[in-house]
């Protein structure tokens, strides 16, 4: 019998994810409780108070399953256990209980599309052509099938097919060659993956982030992405989840244009949430161009989604800042502005953290976070970005943005008691972003630190459901450096005004619809003049933003 403990999972409210603020973390990177140089669940559990104080209310854990770790855990070799470096299943359960006790939801990663080539299923599959698990993966005698399919990891992979010398045939892989794709045309695979999900759901987790969902099914003559059969599988999984574990959230990782992503919400019967990939680079673009056009344009192209669904917004994550969903001219611009050093580039993206991307400019960091937390969607904060951690572009792959969390200025930045040489990754040591300069302990002591500011803004966001669930309507002032919008839910209305420019700006807003309202600035709670018939004039400092609550008094 799987482990079930009712108290672990307090009842989930419908739509809880819409008003969540998610903190993304890899257990390996957060806190090492046993001095072996690798973060673990016991360590993560010890730091839950920190997350609670920060003001997030959900944690998204990156893969923590047994794995050869050739793709940072996205190459899973056992779906029903915990990688020994991170602890045991019991440690995970304990962490889950403690998180729930603090009101923190836990979302875990589920890599549906592929396994590690070290997974027993694949070992069996390749062992003989008549093995019962042979058909669990996608095999072919030549590499000529599905030619219309793009290669995702352009920097490392030449083909989506890899030759297996053991079974003397080719297997299909959309990601690295050591990550063979599961064959979702096989009902046994679908059933087994549901059982895997059920294993964790019964333990009490609150949601899944489903990795690489567009690629589940392959069909000749297509690009093997977003196929109807893939959607059918997702609908089936969703139904099973809804039937047995109501209100558990499914989050799609599908790096697609909004219009292509829209089907993943279905009629509210596929994913609850999906990442809005194209918005993120355009936020960086908008701030650098000092022009709202990229942001408003992509949001205007974003289709409506069912009422129960939600976009997930993020500034940075564990991957490169992906530039797949931009035009060529935009990509060139982003590279030139944000990744002049070629070492900062990876695949079609930029492997840097938030603070270095923004030149460690506190005003821009605040503005970007302000937009993240006020645009429609559920925001995700990548671990360490709340204190302005830096990156190490000289580490391979995306490891430069996966360095140890910087807790203090002491030994290993307070991450681990192990010898520094033993750490899973060298910590950031440079004088600007190193742990002696950037760490939780010192920022906790300063009311003006980035961490304190983040706590404050998250507290304000939590004070109203408007940001999570409200509608958005853009205001189009003639000054293109100003991004302004109205968020509304029921009788509550919030005006957000962002100055994307490095210089002070004045702006006239057409707020006549709200005539008679006064504006209450949400950070200082100061009252601004009442809205009248004339355009509402605001002057804004460089990169300044306002959140105003409108009140009819």
């Amino acid at each position, binding site marked *: 019998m799987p482990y079930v403990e009712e108290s672990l999972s307090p009842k989930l409210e419908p739509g809880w994810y819409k008003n969540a603020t998610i903190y993304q973390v890899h257990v390996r990177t957060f806190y090492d409780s046993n001095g072996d140089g690798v973060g673990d669940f016991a360590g993560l559990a010890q730091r839950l108070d920190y997350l609670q104080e920060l003001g997030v209310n959900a944690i998204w854990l990156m893969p923590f399953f047994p794995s050869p770790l050739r793709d940072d855990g996205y190459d899973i070799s056992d779906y029903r256990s915990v990688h020994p470096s991170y602890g045991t299943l019991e440690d995970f359960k304990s962490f889950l209980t403690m998180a729930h006790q603090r009101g923190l939801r836990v979302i875990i990663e589920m890599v549906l599309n592929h396994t590690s080539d070290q997974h027993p299923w694949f070992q069996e599959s390749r062992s003989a052509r008549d093995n019962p698990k042979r058909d669990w993966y996608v095999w072919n005698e030549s590499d000529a099938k599905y030619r219309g399919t793009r290669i995702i990891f352009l920097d490392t992979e030449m083909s989506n097919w890899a030759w297996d010398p053991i079974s003397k045939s080719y297997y299909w892989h959309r990601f690295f060659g050591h990550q063979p794709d599961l064959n979702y045309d096989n009902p046994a695979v679908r059933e087994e993956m549901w059982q895997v999900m059920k294993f964790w759901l019964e333990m009490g987790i609150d949601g899944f982030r489903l990795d690489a969902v567009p690629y589940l099914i392959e069909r000749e003559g297509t690009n093997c992405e977003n196929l109807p059969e893939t959607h059918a599988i997702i609908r089936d999984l969703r139904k099973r989840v809804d039937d047995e574990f109501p209100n558990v959230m499914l989050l799609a990782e599908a790096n697609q244009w909004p219009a292509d992503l829209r089907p993943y919400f279905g009629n509210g019967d596929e994913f609850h949430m999906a990442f809005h990939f194209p918005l993120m680079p355009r936020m960086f673009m908008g701030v650098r*161009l000092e022009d709202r056009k*990229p942001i408003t344009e992509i949001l205007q192209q974003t289709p409506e989604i069912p009422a129960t669904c939600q976009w997930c917004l993020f500034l940075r994550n564990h991957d490169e800042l992906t530039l797949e969903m931009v035009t060529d*001219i*935009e990509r060139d*611009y982003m590279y030139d502005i944000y990744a002049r050093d070629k070492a900062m580039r990876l695949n079609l993206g930029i492997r840097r953290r938030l603070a270095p991307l923004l030149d460690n400019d506190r005003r821009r960091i605040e503005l970007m976070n302000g937009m993240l937390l006020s645009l429609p969607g559920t925001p995700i904060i990548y671990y360490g970005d709340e204190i302005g951690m830096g990156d190490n572009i000289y580490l391979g792959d995306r490891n430069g943005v996966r360095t140890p969390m910087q807790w203090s200025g002491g030994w290993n930045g307070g991450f681990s008691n192990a010898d520094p040489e033993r750490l899973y990754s060298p910590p950031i040591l440079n004088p600007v972003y190193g742990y002696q300069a950037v760490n939780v302990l010192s920022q906790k002591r300063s009311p003006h630190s980035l961490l304190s500011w983040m706590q404050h803004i998250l507290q304000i966001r939590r004070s109203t459901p408007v940001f999570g669930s409200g509608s958005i309507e853009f205001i189009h002032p*003639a000054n293109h450096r100003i991004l302004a919008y109205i968020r509304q839910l029921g009788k509550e209305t919030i005006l957000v005004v962002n100055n994307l420019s490095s*210089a002070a700006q004045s702006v006239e807003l057409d707020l006549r619809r709200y005539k008679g309202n006064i504006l209450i600035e949400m950070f200082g709670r100061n009252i601004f003049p009442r809205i009248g018939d004339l355009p509402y004039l605001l002057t804004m400092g460089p990169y300044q933003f306002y959140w105003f609550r409108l009140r009819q008094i």
Partner: protein
Amino acid sequence: MSDEFLRQLINVGEVDIVVGVSTHNNAKTIGPVVAAIQAGILKCFPRERVAIINADGGSQDGTTELVEKVSIDDLWREHKVYALRTLHSISARYARIPDPSKALQTILAAADLLHAKSCAFISPESTTIEPDWLQRLVRPIYNENFDLVCPIYVRQRSEGALMRNVLYPMTRSIYGCRIREPYGSEFAISGRLAGDFLAKGISNEDWGRMGPEISMTIMAVAGKYRVCQSFLGAKALVGHGTQDVVSVMRRTVGALFASMDPNFPVWSAITGSEAPPTFGTSTEVENEAVRINRKRLLDMFATGVAQLEPVLGSILPESVLSELKRIAALGLNEFEYPAELWTKTVFEFAASYHKSTISRDHIIQALVPLYRGRSLTFLSENRNGSGEDVETREESLCTDFERLKPYLLESWADRK
């Protein structure tokens, strides 16, 4: 500057490039011109902050509305170009009647307020404009720190009589710089030159008020700013019908003459000339057969010489005037207004203008019939010649202007 215009500029904020378009009742052509400008901006300067400033002199035909109506979203369909950032098009009415000087001032003031690094001017009638024109005008300022980029148009052999017979040779000999089109309807200037032009109040001086475009060129060459030229393309021939030659002469030759007084210390010391750097390559155009009423030109010349003899007598020395009278009596087939005589004529007019022997405006008006005579020679000579022949004759005329510059200096100083 009106409050409304100022408000629009505030919304634009700082820019890298201003593209100025001065209009007056240009509804027939303005739409495609602005669309080409926008396409040029998006193709050649996709990352730069650009504003199109339309200074309008009281159009009644909806010109300003058309400027604002051109949408960058249409460019994706037509030119396959995509805008990275917002592109502002602003129209400002500077007066109820057109005034080129005020139009230029309005655009320059806007460019100055917006901290533009460069400012390009495009004629609303340039229907032959290609998106690349903008790049050819602005890039030398951007990349190589030039202050003024003058155009070189591909002209038919019969085109540009005023430019080829007066403005180019005169500017070249006076200021020592071989600017082929000192009075171009398209040109670009640096923010530095724009600021200095405004700060020195050139627009308020005679030459600046009379001919704002050519005064910009003169200020740049006389002030030792970095000047270059860029090949554009074919110049649009606008069907103005009866073009008022007198007003064009006032705006160009008048301004050139007027500029010589304040700049005397500069130009009097210059001998010879140098070619400025030139970007791009010239493209050949086929010669078009142009119908010209040569007899009418000769009549206008001869009548002018006869009727204006007292006026011309107060401007020209006897030796020049008698030569003019001699050629005025020639038949159409024998008629020739020789280059040297023409050069002396122009120089004498310039010296008289300096001394204001008669009303300056009368001096310019008196030059008009003589210019028609020279135009007749220009057209006759080039009627059957190749492009190379036209170039050779033009160069020869310029050489005469340079060679006879001491004659000008003498007239300037001595003759009463």
